[in-house]
């Protein structure tokens, strides 16, 4: 009898504690289950509405224009075409059948933030302003307009490898394409800095010494 009364009191006591906790949990779980809007929702709204600006500006160079500036395969590395889109071309660098890096050229016309990041550049590769992006990317800007980028796809493909492969791309040839005509402030190769010396190139292409 006593034990039954005790257990009833125990149950009543814990019910007083548990019910509010349980109710709070239910409220919390239902609040969390309403999914947060994606961090890309604003961009989605802006770029999917009628008359949204084109993703690539009309005057951008065709990706096919860039093909001739990419290097051929070299000993131990196979260079394979991957994408050729409006204002963009991309090649894969494979070693032993495994993708180790990606080479790309894109026209920054209509995508100005890609070019303006070079304004804070403090170094050059082959005379062109260069930036590091994240932990896998090295880029240079040619003619204040064409971004040339090498992205590592394998940890063994180092920052120095990226700088070397950027110079295997015919930057001097690329610089003969039309320069930027936008009102963006021109990105100058930093002069106060001693130009970074990139590793010597075994390939046929030599770095541009006097980029224009």
């Amino acid at each position, binding site marked *: 009898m006593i034990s039954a009364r005790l257990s009833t009191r125990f149950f009543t006591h814990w019910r007083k504690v548990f019910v509010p906790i349980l109710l709070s949990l239910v409220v919390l779980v239902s609040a969390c289950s309403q999914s947060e809007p*994606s*961090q890309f929702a604003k*961009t989605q709204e802006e770029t999917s509405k009628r008359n949204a600006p084109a*993703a690539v500006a009309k005057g951008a160079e065709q990706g096919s224009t860039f093909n001739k500036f990419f290097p051929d395969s070299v000993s131990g590395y196979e260079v394979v075409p991957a994408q050729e889109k409006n204002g963009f071309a991309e090649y894969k660098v*494979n070693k032993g059948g495994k993708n180790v890096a990606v080479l790309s050229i894109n026209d920054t016309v209509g*995508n100005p933030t890609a070019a303006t990041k070079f304004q804070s550049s403090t170094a050059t590769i082959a005379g062109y302003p260069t930036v590091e992006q994240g*932990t896998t990317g090295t880029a240079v800007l040619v003619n204040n307009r064409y971004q040339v980028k090498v992205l590592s796809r394998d940890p063994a493909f180092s920052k120095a490898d990226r700088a070397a492969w950027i110079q295997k791309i015919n930057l001097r040839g690329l610089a003969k394409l039309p320069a930027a005509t936008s009102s963006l402030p021109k990105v100058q190769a930093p002069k106060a800095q001693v130009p970074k010396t990139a590793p010597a190139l075994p390939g046929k292409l030599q770095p541009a010494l006097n980029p224009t």
Partner: protein
Amino acid sequence: MSDKAIYDHVDHLPTGGMTVMALKSLDWVIPGQWQNLVGFEKTITAVTGETDPALIKQIGDRAVTLYNDKHEGYQRALWLYQTVDAASGALGAAALANKVGQDISFLGILKNLTPKPEKAQSIDLCVKLVVELVAFCQINGIPGDSIGDFLSALKDYGGESLMRMAALVCFDGLIPLGPDFASKGLSVIKGMSPSDLEHNQTFKGVRELIPGGNSAGQLGFITESFESTKGWMDNFVSSKALTPDRVVDNLSKFVDISKDKLDYLGAFLDMYVKYYQHTGIQTLAHRLIERSVAEI
């Protein structure tokens, strides 16, 4: 074409169910090549190796922008992947109806309204292969009829793209048509008239994006594409010692199928396994992200 955001497509890919199980059952064919990568931000990190939230945001924003521009071809590619799955599912329903028609005399009339399963499956296989080619061109920006470029790229296929081709060979080739599916498919398509093609459900679904101008030209393009890719498929089968039995044995470890009703398996897979759409979204996200990280 859908106005759904690319991140919605990638975030809502299934993590289980028939399609995922069926694809997992093919891991022995291309070991370790396919993981079911789900989630847009997770895909950005997997493709680029970057984890910095600000960089992920920049890459994602660019990918969303590129996808939403209809001139860039990504939405057309997704439409192709989705439509060919939906249309071949309808073909599965027709094939099953035909089967029922053979078993039950009351429904015998149905067999006059639906193509013979083998012919229908052969067309399905050929059209799906051409969809892969056209979607590849749309995504990678290569002119839409570049069979040569596609063949070169096929040698370099990996990950979810190679899984899609493995599923095509196994689920749309070996299971419904047997070990000599490629020769069988080619002989069927070569013996067809443009009007046979016009009546095919799968072709009707995607015909507006198949190069060739009219049905005769499209039949020519499909035949040429299939003939050119036959060598790759034959080599894929022989190098991996693929047989219908081995495919079915592995599939039965993941999906509850009855081995005494294998006649129904091809139609069943057509209706319930949407592997083109599933791996197509993964391929599309992969390529978009590759381009975006390069362009920002």
